[in-house]
C-alpha cells in the first residue's frame, strides 16, 4: 500500500501544487504539502507499528465508553 500512497501523494502534489505556486498562493501551497506529509506519515504508522490516531482516541475515551455501556451488564 505504501508505494501506492507515495505515488498518489506526489501526483496530488503536482496536480494541485503547480497551479498554486504559479498563482503565488503560498499559504495554500504549504497547507497542501503539510496534509500530504500527514497522509504519508499515517501510511508509515502501520509499517513502523506505532499507534494510529484512532488507537490514541481509544486509550483516552475507551474506558469512559466501557463504563457507560457495560455497566448495565
Amino acid at each position, binding site marked *: 500500500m505504501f508505494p501506492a500512497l507515495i505515488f498518489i501523494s506526489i501526483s496530488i502534489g503536482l496536480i494541485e501544487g503547480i497551479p498554486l505556486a504559479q498563482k503565488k498562493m503560498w499559504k495554500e501551497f504549504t497547507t497542501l504539502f503539510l496534509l500530504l506529509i500527514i497522509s504519508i506519515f499515517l501510511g508509515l504508522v502501520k509499517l513502523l507499528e506505532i499507534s494510529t490516531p484512532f488507537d490514541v482516541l481509544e486509550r483516552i475515551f475507551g474506558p469512559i*465508553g466501557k463504563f457507560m*455501556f457495560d455497566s448495565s451488564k
Partner: protein
Amino acid sequence: MSNKEKISTNQFVWMLFGIITSFTVLQIPGILILHAGRDAWLSVIVAWFLDVLLALVYAYMGLRFPGQNFVQYSMTILGKLGGRIVGFIFPLYFLMVTALLMRAISTLIETNLSDMPKLVIYSMGCITIAYTARKGIEIIARVCEILGPIYLISLFILFFMAIPIIKIDRVKPFLMEGSYPFLSGSILILSFIGICIMMAMYIPVCNHPENGFKAKFIAVTMGATMITTLIFLVIGAFGAEQAGSMVNPGASLAREIQVGIFERLESVWLIVAVGAGIMTCVNLIWAFSMGASQIIGLNSYKPLVLPATLIATVLSIISFDSNIEMLNFVFYVYTIIAVFVQTGLEMFLFAMAFILKKGAKKSS
C-alpha cells in the same frame, strides 16, 4: 473567504436526510440491537427528541451569527487563538466520521462482492468523493436532491416488501430488561443522528437561513422514522439475538426478500446505500476542507479536498485490523467523542456567546 454559493431549503433537507440515514443505517442497527435488544427502536425515538432540542441551539446560533458557520463563530466568540483551537475540533470530527464511513462502505461492498479487490473499492470511492467535493456545495446539493428521494423511496419499498416475513411476537415484550439499555442506547444513536450538526455548515450557505430549524426537523424526523422502522422490521424478521450479531442487518433484510422470480434484491439496496454513503462522505470532506481553510485563513478550500480525501482513506485502511475492532471503536469510543463534539462544544459556545455578549442581538 467569500462564498457566493447558495442552496435551497429543499436541498438542505435532502442533504441532512442523506447524512443521517446513510451513516446510521450502515453502522448502527446491529450494535444498537445488540445493546438494547428488542427495545432498540425505542432508543431512536428518545434520540430523535434530544436531537430536535439540540437543533434549536444550532439554529439559534446560526441566526445569532448570520453568515457564519460554527468554525467561524468559534473565532468570533473565543477570539483568534481560542476560537481556532475549539473550531478545529469540528473539521477533525468530520474527518474521523469520513474515515469510519469509508470503512463501513468498503465492508458492505466486500461482504456482497467478495471478489472485488480492496484497491478498486477505495480508488473508485476516493475519486468520486474528491471530484464531487471539489465541485462545490451547489453541485453536492443538487446531487443530494436527486439521490435523497430515491433513497427514501427505496427504503419504503424495502419495508413494504419485508412485511410478510415479520413475526410481531419477536418484537414483544417491551422493556423486559428495564429502561437502562434503551436509554443508554439512545445516547449511542444520538451520536449518529447528531452528525447533522452539519446544519451549522449549511445555514450560512442556505438562501433562507431562518429555515435552518425547519430543515433539520423535517430531515431528522424522516431519518429517525426510517431508522426506527428498519430496526423494528429487522428484529421482527430475525429476532433480537440474531439481528444483534449482524454487521449490516438492513442488507440481510433485503436478502430475505423475494418478488416472483426476482431474488437477491440486496444488490439494489447495496447500490442505493453505497450511493448515499458516498454522498455523505462528499459532504463531510467538503465540511472538513471548508472548516480547515477558514481556520487557516485560505482563499479557497479546494486545494485541501484531495489531501483530505487521501488522509481519510489512509485512516480507514490502517486504523482497524477487523470489522469487530471497528464496531468496538464505534460503540465505546466514537459515541463519547461525538456527544462531546455535537453537544458539549456547541453548548459551550452557546454559553460563551451569552457570557461574552457576542453576536447579533435578537430584535423584538
